[in-house]
Every structure is written in C-alpha cells, then in structure tokens.
C-alpha cells in the first residue's frame, strides 16, 4: 500500500515536470494510471483534471503579474470553451470505458504526431505565407 502511494507520487512527479515545462503532463499521467495502476479511463481522467488545478492557479497568478495574459476579448474564447467542456464531460461520462479509452488513444497518437512534426507544420505555414506575400508583389 505504501509502495503504491510512493509509485503514484513518482508518476505524478514525472507528469508534473512535463506539465511544468508546458508539454501536457496529462498525456503521461492518464496512460500511466490506466496501464500501471489499473485505474479505469474515466477515473484517470478525473485524477488528471483535479491534479492540474493547483499548478494552473499558481502559474496563472505568475503570468498575470508579469502581464503576459492577453485579457482583451478573452471571453469570446472562454464562454464557448466552458459550454463545450461541460458537454464533453457529460459525453465522456455517458459512453463506455473501453470506447473512451480507444478514442483517448487516437487523441494521443494525433497529438504525438503533431508534436513530432510541429516544426515541419510550422515551416509549411510560414513558407505558404512567404509565397503568398511574394505573389502579391
């Protein structure tokens, strides 16, 4: 029991380090909880959501103090996001755990591919812009 607690905390530390570096710790914590600790998908997602809150509050306070947050017009993003996150949560709770796990797997694969090729995607967009620009000239 004590070992399980320690191992859980160690997993949390790894996920937190990635999260603190801005890489999305949940992508590590959720699979770790389901694979190594036998937690079901929805339970792992619940833990990840709750675990994110204290760090996010601290980071946001620091960013607000440093005036890095662009608050103008932000409600145009936050209000639809709030509504859709409620819908997403209820949807996740209503489908079967195995389907949710598979969809989560697909989501992880897409995010991983995006991260692996983010530089290429970026240069694709910037090259396109450069081309457009020269065409105008």
């Amino acid at each position: 029991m004590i070992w399980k607690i320690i191992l859980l905390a160690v997993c949390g530390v790894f996920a937190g380090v990635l999260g603190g570096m801005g890489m999305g710790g949940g992508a590590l914590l959720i699979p770790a909880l389901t694979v190594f600790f036998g937690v079901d998908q929805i339970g792992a997602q619940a833990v990840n959501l709750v675990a994110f809150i204290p760090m996010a509050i601290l980071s946001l306070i620091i960013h607000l103090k440093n005036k890095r947050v662009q608050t103008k017009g932000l409600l145009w993003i936050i209000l639809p996001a709030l509504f859709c996150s409620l819908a997403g949560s209820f949807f996740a709770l209503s489908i079967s755990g195995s389907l949710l796990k598979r969809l989560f797997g697909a989501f992880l694969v897409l995010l991983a591919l995006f991260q692996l090729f983010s530089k290429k995607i970026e240069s694709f967009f910037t090259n396109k812009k450069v081309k457009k620009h020269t065409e105008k000239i």
Partner: protein
Amino acid sequence: MENSIKQKGYMAITGALTGLANGFFGGGGGMIVVPLMIYLLKIKTKTAHATALAVILPITLISALVYFLSGKFDFKVGVPSLVGVVLGGIIGAWLLGKLSADWLTKIFSLVMLVAGVKALVL
C-alpha cells in the same frame, strides 16, 4: 488582436474545440489551444502560452467538478498523484530553459505514440 467579427468567430471556434477535447479526454486542452492561438488567432507564442492557462483553468475547474460529483475521483489514487504533480510542476518550471526541450519533446512524443497505439488497439 483584431476585433472583427471574423476574429471573434475564430476565437469561439478555438474555445469550443478546446473545451470539448479537455472535457471529453480529461486534459490536453493546452495542446490544442496553444497552436490554435498561434496559427489561427495570430497571438505571439509567449502570450499564447500564458493566455492558454486563463482559458484552461476555468474549463478544467468545471470539468473536474462534473467528474468529481459523478464519483469518478478516487482519493486513494488521486491524492498521491496530485502531490506528485505539484512537486513535479515546481521542478519542471525550474528546469524550463535549463534543459534542451527539443530532444525531450521527441522522447515524450514517442512515449505518447506508444501509449496511444496501446490504448487504441488493446
């Protein structure tokens, strides 16, 4: 940020996609909202990372509440994980800029790829 109708529409789409994914998958909102802010809304990278938190925090609070009230949060698993995540977050913030994020991102992406395929197929 340009305050046109089109820009507001893009903002609403950004919010909707982020909220849907974050609520449904219990996370990952940051990995969606940051690229959308940079490429679609044309916000500077540093500002996007900071502003993303202002979006993700409220939606995570509301999703966490829904999951919690449905009895999906297991304290025996959740409390040790949470303590670890907070500790790790502090270490991560401290390491930021001290470690080369480039190879770390590559390794992390490969781990995600393996975990994703495993969850998808098994």
